[in-house]
């Protein structure tokens, strides 16, 4: 007889890891215990050498699907007097804490959900150790029911028995409950706001069918899910969707669609409408259950109003039991868009949603489990054969990554102004929040403050310094200055470049193309079309687009004609659009009034769209570039203008001016000009890279910034760079847009902090 001591780290909390160890040890007739150390798991096993050897080989072989264990320590130890194997009670220590994201419903629970003989039949909040909400319902750690939003639901005898039984998959499943003791639904028509909310099992069944009927009748229903409310309506009904668009004052922005699970791999309904590559299929069915952007099939009969003028639709599968029940009953695709007012984080509160959406939704389907903090759906797009996150949200966040260095003290990075996320980092760990949104609204700031407090509290880490963007007018930068903590500011594109360098720390030195909207650069102008050389903490700008003027401040985002005017006037060409009197703007441009200098490629895309004839004014940021991309479908190379590359000071500069006549010529179709524009931009990038390689050692190239959400451009660029022998990296775990900024800020500032230590 001998004894082994194991210390297991990684994702081992709230995922059924201890019951798994219990089963394994008892199967092997080992004695000892498994114990939670509020984050890590400690195992003491004793038995014969063979038994212990089998245990060691089995330990990491078949852990529960959601667990991500790794061995921190394995040593022989002294024998202890025990006569069984047990799960010892939790010990609260200062060990590694992992807050799990919200998981999609597992197959076992799904089976019970649809089984009329099971006592959980049609319980819309069924869950077990392998599935269910976590991040959005945990109040504080360690993860115990009393510290979740299930605290006010006392367990019935049946549920208690499951909770206490180590061989049951609901053993210590903190949010477990059943129709008898659990969460209820409540369906309310709009304009009944004064009546009380009632929840009970009978109500739940009628609420569900009333909701299904309302949707079938073409109504818009706000439905409370895992990380917030969705607005739902039929995805095939033009009138329902148009009504939703009018009421939300959202004329064009794409709406996501949730499809019922159907067929062998569950994707039959999606395949009927959209093109699903094998990579996309895996992504759709992955535990994250994200929204995946997929090209429409030519015979797609979903409403054309889902994504006007675009050829992709955001599709997702139902992920919570409630969504399963609804979609099964409806048996058809449904619009499922975040219930919020533009730019705000998704709404989570029963009363607030009725108040804020009283003129948007016809009805509400509430439940009485509180959402402690919001999490929007994650969004992915397959680019260059891999799913890339465009938005980190439910199922992914809190997203944990390992730092390529060890921090001397904990730091908090507060991200950008738009698509804000925050990140908390200490030692070698970094944890990123889900997408918070545009920090220009009161509600985003409230959530931003809450998440900053919650992450530090949950992980029992207090930041001793704050990292923010160098742009002083970002709300996050203002917050940093008022935090009372030491502040390190990071230039926007340094953070973009460092984010990719942090994802692939083995690659050095880098040449990173940071193409996006605008961000404050080192020289006080607004960058957005630049190439940075070096490594995190030491970037050197080596190339850029020819600078031009942006007129009218933040208005450039929704008024792409301003970018087109800026380009034309820069080179002495006239610019005018029929619907806009640009005389005054021209005078303002001449006098440099509210006018800034930029190298932004995002704004070049805006301009190009307008110059080929797209609407001079749009209703959401990025609409013009998305339209431009959607015109591109062929791989044919066009006769394109080359962008002259010249030396300006210590930079290589590509001149976009030959594009202006090319884009405006009516001799060729919009499609050809759009494709030609993309090809010309890809060529410009290639020429810059080749030129820089003649001067410097270029290990590999990184592509990041919001522009590389554009698949057509990104894949063109990669093909061309690969053809001349460059190795190319794209962000894979983080969004290339400003959603990845907080991580990049940690990497960039972290490298500089370490230099000083």
């Amino acid at each position, binding site marked *: 007889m001998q004894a082994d001591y194991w210390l297991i780290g990684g994702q081992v909390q709230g995922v059924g890891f201890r019951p798994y160890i219990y089963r394994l040890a008892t199967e092997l007739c080992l004695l000892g215990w498994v114990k939670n150390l509020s984050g890590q798991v400690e195992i003491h096993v004793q038995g014969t050498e063979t038994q212990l050897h089998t245990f060691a080989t089995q330990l990491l072989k078949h852990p529960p699907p959601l667990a991500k264990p790794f061995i921190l320590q394995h040593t022989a130890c002294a024998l202890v007097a025990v006569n069984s194997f047990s799960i010892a009670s939790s010990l609260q220590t200062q060990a590694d804490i992992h807050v799990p994201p919200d998981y999609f419903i597992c197959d076992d629970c799904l089976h019970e959900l649809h089984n009329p003989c099971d006592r959980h039949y049609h319980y819309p909040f069924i869950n077990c150790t392998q599935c269910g909400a976590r991040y959005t319902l945990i109040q504080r750690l360690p993860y115990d029911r009393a510290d979740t939003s299930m605290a006010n639901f006392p367990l019935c005898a049946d549920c208690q028995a499951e909770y206490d039984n180590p061989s049951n998959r609901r053993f210590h499943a903190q949010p477990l409950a059943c129709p008898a003791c659990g969460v209820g639904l409540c369906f309310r028509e709009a304009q009944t706001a004064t009546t009380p909310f009632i929840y009970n099992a009978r109500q739940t069944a009628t609420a569900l069918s009333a909701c299904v009927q309302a949707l079938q009748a073409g109504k818009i229903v706000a439905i409370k899910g895992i990380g917030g409310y969705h607005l739902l309506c039929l995805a095939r009904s033009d009138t329902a969707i148009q009504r939703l668009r009018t009421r939300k004052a959202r004329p064009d922005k794409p709406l996501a669609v949730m499809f019922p699970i159907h067929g062998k791999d569950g994707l039959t309904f999606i395949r009927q409408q959209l093109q699903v590559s094998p990579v996309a299929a895996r992504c759709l069915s992955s535990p994250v259950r994200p929204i995946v952007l997929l090209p429409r099939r030519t015979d797609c009969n979903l409403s054309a109003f889902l994504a006007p003028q675009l050829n992709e639709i955001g599709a997702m599968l139902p992920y919570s039991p409630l969504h399963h029940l609804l979609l099964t009953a409806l048996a058809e695709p449904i619009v499922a868009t975040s219930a919020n007012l533009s730019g705000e984080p998704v709404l989570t509160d029963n009363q607030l949603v009725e108040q804020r959406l009283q003129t948007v939704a016809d009805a509400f389907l509430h439940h009485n489990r509180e959402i402690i903090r919001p999490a929007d759906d994650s969004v992915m797009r397959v680019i260059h054969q891999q799913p890339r996150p465009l938005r980190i949200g439910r199922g992914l966040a809190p997203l944990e990554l390992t730092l390529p260095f060890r921090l001397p003290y904990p730091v908090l990075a507060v991200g950008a102004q738009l698509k804000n996320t925050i990140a908390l980092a200490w030692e070698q760990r970094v944890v990123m929040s889900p997408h918070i949104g545009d920090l220009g609204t*009161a509600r985003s700031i409230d959530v931003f403050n809450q998440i900053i407090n919650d992450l530090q509290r949950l992980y029992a880490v207090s930041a001793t310094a704050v990292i923010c963007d160098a742009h002083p007018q970002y709300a996050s930068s*203002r917050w940093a200055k008022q935090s009372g903590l030491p502040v390190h500011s990071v230039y926007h594109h340094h953070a973009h470049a460092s984010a990719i360098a942090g994802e692939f720390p083995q690659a050095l030195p880098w040449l990173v193309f940071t193409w996006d909207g605008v961000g404050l650069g080192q020289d006080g102008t607004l960058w957005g079309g630049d190439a940075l050389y070096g490594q995190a903490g030491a970037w050197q700008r080596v190339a850029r687009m020819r600078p031009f003027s942006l007129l009218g401040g*933040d208005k450039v985002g929704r008024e792409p004609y301003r970018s087109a005017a800026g380009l034309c006037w820069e080179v002495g060409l006239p610019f005018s659009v029929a619907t806009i009197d640009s005389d005054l703007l021209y005078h303002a441009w001449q*006098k440099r009034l509210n006018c800034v200098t930029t190298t932004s490629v995002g704004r070049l895309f805006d301009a190009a769209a307008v110059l080929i004839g797209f609407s001079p004014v749009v209703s959401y940021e990025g609409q013009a570039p998305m339209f431009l991309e959607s015109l591109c479908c062929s791989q044919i190379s066009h006769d394109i203008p080359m962008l002259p590359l010249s030396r300006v000071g210590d930079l290589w500069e590509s001149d976009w001016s030959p594009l202006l006549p090319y884009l405006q010529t009516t001799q060729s179709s919009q499609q050809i000009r759009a494709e030609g524009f993309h090809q010309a931009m890809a060529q410009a990038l290639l020429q810059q890279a080749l030129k820089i390689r003649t001067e410097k050692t270029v290990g590999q190239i990184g592509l990041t910034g919001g522009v590389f959400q554009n698949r057509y451009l990104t894949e063109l660029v990669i093909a061309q760079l690969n053809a001349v022998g460059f190795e190319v990296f794209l962000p894979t775990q983080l969004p290339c847009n400003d959603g990845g900024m907080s991580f990049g800020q940690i990497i960039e500032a972290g490298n500089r902090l370490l230099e000083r230590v």
Partner: protein
Amino acid sequence: MQDTHITLAHGNGGRLMRELIEQLFAKHLHNPTLNTQLDATTLPWSASQLVVTTDGFIVKPLEFSGGNIGSLAIHGTVNDLAVAGAKPLYITLNAFIEEGLEIAILERLIISMAQAAQQAGVSVVAGDTKVVQRGEGGGLYLATTGFGVRIATQSLDFSTIQAGDALLISGAVGNHGIAVMLAREQFGLRGDLQSDSACVFPLTEALLPFTGLRFMRDPTRGGLATVAHEISQATGHALVLEQPTIPIHDSVQTVCDMLGYDPLYLACEGRVVAVIAADQAEQALAIWKTLPQGQQAAIIGHVQTGYARVILRTALGGERLLEELEDDPLPRIC
């Protein structure tokens, strides 16, 4: 006065200076208490509470649609007294004139000042002129001190503001800022766009009978948004502004839309922001609307518990944060 332009000799204490003062300043600003012969003036005074303010005026260009630096100096000074609950009575004037200023222009400015003073019911009771070298001043700088008698019985102080109080504005915002900008950049006139420069005493006086009147301010530099921030920070409460209710002239909105300015941050020179108990707001508004300057007055928001910040609620119910004014706003779209 044979010269057509100001020379350094106009400031040397000799004949030219005497002529300048007598033939321009004293002539137009004449009133019984103004005595240019004496070093100081004696004023009749019987009130218990004297209210004093001082102000300097620099504006480029000196003349703009709806006003000029002369009228502006009177309005700016009397308005500061008026919003403090006082009736403006006297003004002193310092003029710093740049060598080379055309005397005809100077005379226009002084006439305009005299008219503004007369309309506001104030007398310029003392003054001084200096001439600065060419290139050292923007044509004309004015410095004023205003005296008034306190007629308000309320304390009119940030400390009286309570959550729930209503916010009123007496008229459309941004006109002055845009009128001056258009004149400065020589963009030409845009329709009927004029500065709102005016004396607000009739407006402030009309609210004084209200026991629930808490506070008044004229939203000059930094505009309505800046006054909102001042109130919010001084009280620790949130200020909620209802965007659709804020009066803005179409021509101002059009220019702002085109150039990317926010009218809420632009200067007004003839408006009053008042904080008043919610239950008296409608009545106060009704009274303002009977006055010629208050035709477009509106209840535009309220004070809300919570921490200090300014929220702009849009027509759709969105809640945008109005940040504090920046020197040089840069785009943040990425």
